[in-house]
């Protein structure tokens, strides 16, 4: 039955579940309704609610890019009941999808600029479509720095794509972990200190940051020290959300709703919010 | 000197001498009639404190927000039992606490804007008018009256046939809003994650509907069996007047009969359901 009820998800099928890290799965999802697929376009930074029927639904940033016309992709870290249920699903399972919701990263404004992508843990996942968009339209943008950090080497998401990214023109990939292991020969440092060490230049640049609140907090401090202005820093806010429509009022912060007015905000916009999340 | 004056004096001295950071007591609320909780941090604020028969709140609950901070608190006898309960369950530290115990003639049902005329049911059968633990006592201890039947309300309910009781509780629980005011006001309810909000495992669904409401209210009552100190907060704060004290008092009566135990009379005796001895016989499945 078709419904105009915005709470009723589109039926979809889990095509594939790929283990990205010990606790993160990448889900590839196809919408069941063939009429819907061509219209289902979305931008980097937007999110969908994915339902595990019987448990509930949760919001996830899309990690795929719309223009490649592939399945919808979300990276799901097992942290609660819904994510726990999703992790138990096998290919072919029915899931629900609502969305896309929210605003998106202002990629048009990024054209002609150096871009620093800084992601921590599962927070790196919604930055992947930004990276893919830049790499697929490489001449539109200047230098690209990708800084991906995680607790351990095993927790770095999208590791299978690192070589491709690093081999792209004018692209630099930096990886860091909080704690290495025997095989790890790379950096062992927290993201904010790597930002300081790399001495990122604010010249004709934007920094795009996503990660746990504490990492964002200290990274912003370093970027400010390096001379980045508030409008050069783009980040995401996280809020508990239940509807994605600005109705349930759960993600209300100041006079904004993270689900509708966000999740992407420049630091300039965030600093005008009364409440600081 | 009136009880109010004695409380003000004690609070002023404690705050002036920096013996405590805060005195939790009562002040007059905005209806000009009833008391409300008040936190005094400065000696100058001590004169806002009051005590009278509208001081129904059990302030002991607030000690859970002030763990590790030196605090003085005004308690009635039942509230003093809540302090013992929290001490017994290692929730608060005695050495951080200055207890201003008030000899209590009983408090009245809270009615907005008008002085309550009726004493709380629990006060009508009260056998403890002097706090069981205190550092400063306000008022003179009185000799306790012999109360022939301390549970007339429970006995009345027990005398009814099962289907009548069932109908009664179904009606009562059907109006529950699951606002959790009962839990939030209860000094014995302090789980960091309440079973009612726990998702994994899920004990009770989020529906605000008769079945879930019944599970919520009865499970909460059982969690307080042998722990409820009879402060009546749950019933006082319920916005739809559910007779929660009947449930709690029934369990209190049973625990008294079976285990000769009353919660919070001292800080050492463990509540019956927090201990287990191998030779215990519960009369279940034996």
């Amino acid at each position: 039955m078709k419904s105009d009820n915005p709470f009723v998800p589109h039926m979809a099928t889990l095509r594939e579940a790929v283990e990205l890290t010990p606790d993160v799965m990448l889900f590839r999802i196809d919408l069941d309704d063939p009429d819907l697929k061509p219209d289902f376009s979305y931008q980097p930074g937007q999110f969908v609610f994915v339902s595990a029927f019987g448990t509930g639904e949760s919001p996830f940033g899309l990690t795929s890019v719309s223009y490649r016309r592939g399945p919808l992709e979300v990276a799901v870290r097992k942290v609660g009941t819904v994510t726990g249920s999703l992790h138990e699903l096998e290919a072919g399972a029915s899931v629900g999808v609502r969305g896309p919701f929210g605003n998106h990263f202002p990629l048009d404004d990024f054209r002609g600029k150096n871009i620093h992508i800084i992601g921590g843990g599962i927070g790196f996942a919604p930055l992947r479509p930004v990276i893919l968009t830049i790499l697929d339209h490489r001449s539109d943008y200047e230098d690209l720095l990708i800084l991906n950090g995680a607790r351990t080497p095993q927790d770095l998401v999208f590791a299978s794509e690192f070589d491709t990214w690093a081999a792209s023109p004018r692209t630099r990939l930096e990886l860091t972990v909080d704690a290495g292991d025997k095989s790890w020969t790379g950096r062992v440092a927290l993201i904010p200190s790597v930002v300081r060490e790399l001495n990122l230049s604010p010249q004709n640049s934007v920094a795009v940051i996503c990660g746990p609140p504490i990492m964002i907090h200290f990274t912003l401090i370093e970027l400010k020290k390096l001379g980045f202005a508030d409008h050069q820093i783009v980040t995401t806010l996280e809020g508990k959300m239940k509807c994605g429509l600005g109705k349930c009022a759960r993600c209300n912060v100041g006079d904004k709703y993270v689900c509708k007015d966000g999740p992407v905000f420049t630091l300039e916009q965030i600093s005008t919010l009364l409440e600081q999340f | 000197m009136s009880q109010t004056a004695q409380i003000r004096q004690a609070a002023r001295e404690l705050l002036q001498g920096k013996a405590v950071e805060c005195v939790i007591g009562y002040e007059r609320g905005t209806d000009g009639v009833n008391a409300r909780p008040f936190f005094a941090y400065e000696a100058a604020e001590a004169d806002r404190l009051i005590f009278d028969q509208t001081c129904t709140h059990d302030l002991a609950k607030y000690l859970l927000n002030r763990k590790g901070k030196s605090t003085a608190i005004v308690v009635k006898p039942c509230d003093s039992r809540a302090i013992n309960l929290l001490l017994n369950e290692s929730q608060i530290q005695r050495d951080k606490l200055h207890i201003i115990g008030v000899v209590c003639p009983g408090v009245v049902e809270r009615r907005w804007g008008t002085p309550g005329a009726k004493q709380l049911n629990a006060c009508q059968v009260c056998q403890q008018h002097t706090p069981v633990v205190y550092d400063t006592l306000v008022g003179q201890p009185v000799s306790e009256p012999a109360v022939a039947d301390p549970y007339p309300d429970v006995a009345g309910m027990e005398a009814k046939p099962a289907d009548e009781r069932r109908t009664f509780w179904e009606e009562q629980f059907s109006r529950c809003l699951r606002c959790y005011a009962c839990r939030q006001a209860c000094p014995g309810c302090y789980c960091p994650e309440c079973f009612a909000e726990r998702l994994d495992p899920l004990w009770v669904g989020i529906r605000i509907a008769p079945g879930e409401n019944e599970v919520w209210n009865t499970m909460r009552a059982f969690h307080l069996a042998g722990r409820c100190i009879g402060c009546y907060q749950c019933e006082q704060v319920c916005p739809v007047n559910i007779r929660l004290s009947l449930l709690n008092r029934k369990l209190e009566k049973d625990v008294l009969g079976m285990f000769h135990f009353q919660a919070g009379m001292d800080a050492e005796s463990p509540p019956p359901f927090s201990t287990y001895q191998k030779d215990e016989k519960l009369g279940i499945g034996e």
Partner: protein
Amino acid sequence: MRQFISKQNLISWLRQQMEARQLVAPTQVDDLILFRRIDRVDDVILQFQNTATSPKEWLFPKTETLFHVERKDGKAELIPAEIDGETVIFGLRPCDARGITMLDLPYLADPADTLYRQHRQKTVLVGLSCLTACPECFCESMGSGPEDTAALDIMFTEVRDGYLVQAITEKGRSLMPQALLSPAETVKPPAPETAPVPSEGITAKMRQAFDGPYWGRVADRCIHCNVCAYVCPTCYCFDVRDYTNKGSVERVRSWESCQSPGFTKIAGGHDPRANKGARMRQRFSHKLLYFPEQFGPLHCVGCGRCVRACPVNIDIREIMQDVQRMGAPK
């Protein structure tokens, strides 16, 4: 034109409504007056100050199914909930009806909340104007008043031996048979005055008073129950979860409140609003600052229920006074 209906005719009219559709009206339940579905017209209470809880639950139920999941041949199918049947709510106080216009603003904004819209379309709102004011009412300071007809389809005003009738909307007129009415000969009784609160300019003052120790001090005594939000005619936050029962699955929403400890806690445990004072401030900021900035009106109709029901006397009238005093520019 104002018309008159005798008390006897009003009761016949209520009986007709009860037989034709669901009738919801104030009724006595133990020592409370609550809006309930009426099965006997004698149960309707005509004289009361106001109900203990607001009528919003008849448009925004405490718990409501959004859709059912049905399994057919191994495939899941989603069956959206539909509101069937019409309802007449009788005995709405003007402040509560004004409260419904507040629910309309977020819920009917595009994309509309389908179930709320259906409830709204299938419900006739019948008001009963106030002849006395409760001491804790402050509707006139909040853009409403004892004779406010916002959202109402019909308004009754009690006079000697009956009621003045004002059919406000087409929906209201179509439900009010002329045969039961006569021309009004009685003059309308004067509306009572409610105690004023300083609402003028409160939004700007809230912004100025946002930081500072005040909210923490008020929150000291807050026990963070959900009473204020659940008795409120305008609070509209909700939670959504799946509900399973013997193999059937449905998605439900239930009321939720910004004062509840888990309101903003996200999976993984982070809570951006864990602080008691910040939570307290959220309630009043949403009512007096964010909502007016988003939608226009203050998000409070002055019904006074939260004032009366708050277990620890957190009184929005006092808070508005304090904020007005505090709100000198920083």
